[in-house]
């Protein structure tokens, strides 16, 4: 079981927990504002953009090429950007905080 926090654009902190699926699915299932996941997680829409905390970024890992190509053209991209449809919910992310980009 992983418990994580999303910080939305309005600075609301939303704490959610899950043990499977993608981080995008966990966010949309809990109505996290700014995470739409329109394409259902196939990395086509870039509506699940988050920032990972710098200290956690190494643990989460760099995006694959297709994901980084998508992020490259997002106006709000930073070096800590990820599309959360490509992050699995496992115990490895337990306790992390993610900032919603849009």
């Amino acid at each position, binding site marked *: 079981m992983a418990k994580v926090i999303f910080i939305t654009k309005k600075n609301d902190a939303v704490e959610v927990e899950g043990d499977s699926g993608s981080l995008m699915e966990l966010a949309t299932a809990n109505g996290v504002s700014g995470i*739409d996941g329109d394409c259902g997680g196939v990395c086509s*829409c870039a509506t699940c953009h988050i920032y990972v905390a710098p200290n956690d970024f190494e643990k989460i890992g760099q995006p*694959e090429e297709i994901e980084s190509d998508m992020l490259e053209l997002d106006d709000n991209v930073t070096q800590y950007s990820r599309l959360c449809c490509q992050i699995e919910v496992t115990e490895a992310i337990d306790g992390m905080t993610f900032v919603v980009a849009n």
Partner: protein
Amino acid sequence: MTSKVTGISEFPDAFAQQRRVTGMGQMDDQNDPVNMILGLKDVRKAAHNCAVFQSGAKPGRIVIPSEVAIRETRQIPFEVDPPEHGGFRELLNPWFKRPLDECYQARLQTIIDETIENAFKAESFDVVSQFALPLQSKALTLLLNTSMDKAQTWIDWGTHVFRSEGSDLDGDKANILYNYIDEQIENAILNPGDDLYSVLLNSEANGKKLSKEEIKGVMILTFAGGRDTVINAITNSIAYFSENISDLKRIDDQPEILNRAVEELIRYFSPLTQMGRVATQDTSVCEHAIKADTRVSLCWASANRDEKVFKDPNNVDFDRKVNPHISFGFSHHNCLGATHARQILRQLVLSLANKVAQIETIKADENIEKLGEFSRKVGFNSLHVSFKSK
């Protein structure tokens, strides 16, 4: 036009050679030529660079074929550039996300179930005019939040809002839509309700109340943008499953693959071939000079078969977990109606998987677009099939 009954599930990549050789294609369109951008990364870059490749040109000019001759109203937010575009999207996005509501989905399911039941009752039927068009029209009543009886008017317009029998634009036919929308706006002023017209009449974007002309622009986009595209997506899906019934059975057995399957079908079909932009300055794409005030197209259909991005791009693969297709466009101007379209397809494909044992094709007339040097199958003019229920 061609007539055939086998191979109808195949949608060849019309752009492969030119995409590999130069990355660009050319076509004329009513004496306003178009440089077609063919590779996925180039299309995405151009779509994102709205300062150089603008949407806010003369109304109708970014559409291919151009609608300059038949339309003066600017479609909103589609033909508006940032930052003004963002204000309109902020207003419209929540309304166009309503297909995610359970209540909306339940009503959509009723429409889909009735459409499939009617198909079972018929010995055979034309998918385009007797299945996809009624389904699209009835589903549109949900998006507009209007009464279901409006759908019959839209069905009676036929499959094309802007075209008569051929592919040429038909100004008289387009005026039927424009006049209809004018009437509906006036009706909503006299009898406000909770439909999209009424909501827009009471809305502001970019700090200003929407004008009637702006509301008309939103409504034209909503009617026109989601008509041929949704009809193509529905019809092409049925054509695909008619020759690949085991894939439909697989969805019934493994409903967890539904989303991947729908996204893959949308990539493969690319229901809208391309969309234009107008260059605001001299620039270049793939070392090809683009002059200021000329048109380029973002060729979604070519980009979605780009072998540099997609493995086996001409195969329909429901196991394609990462699928960065751009059938709904890309960046600021991604499709406003994508949530509605996806919801129709997800529920329709799952319902077909649950209910249909076999789809037999009787005759098919493919719709082949002539795009300069390219000929592309985008859908069907008609597709006569019969459904066998489980």
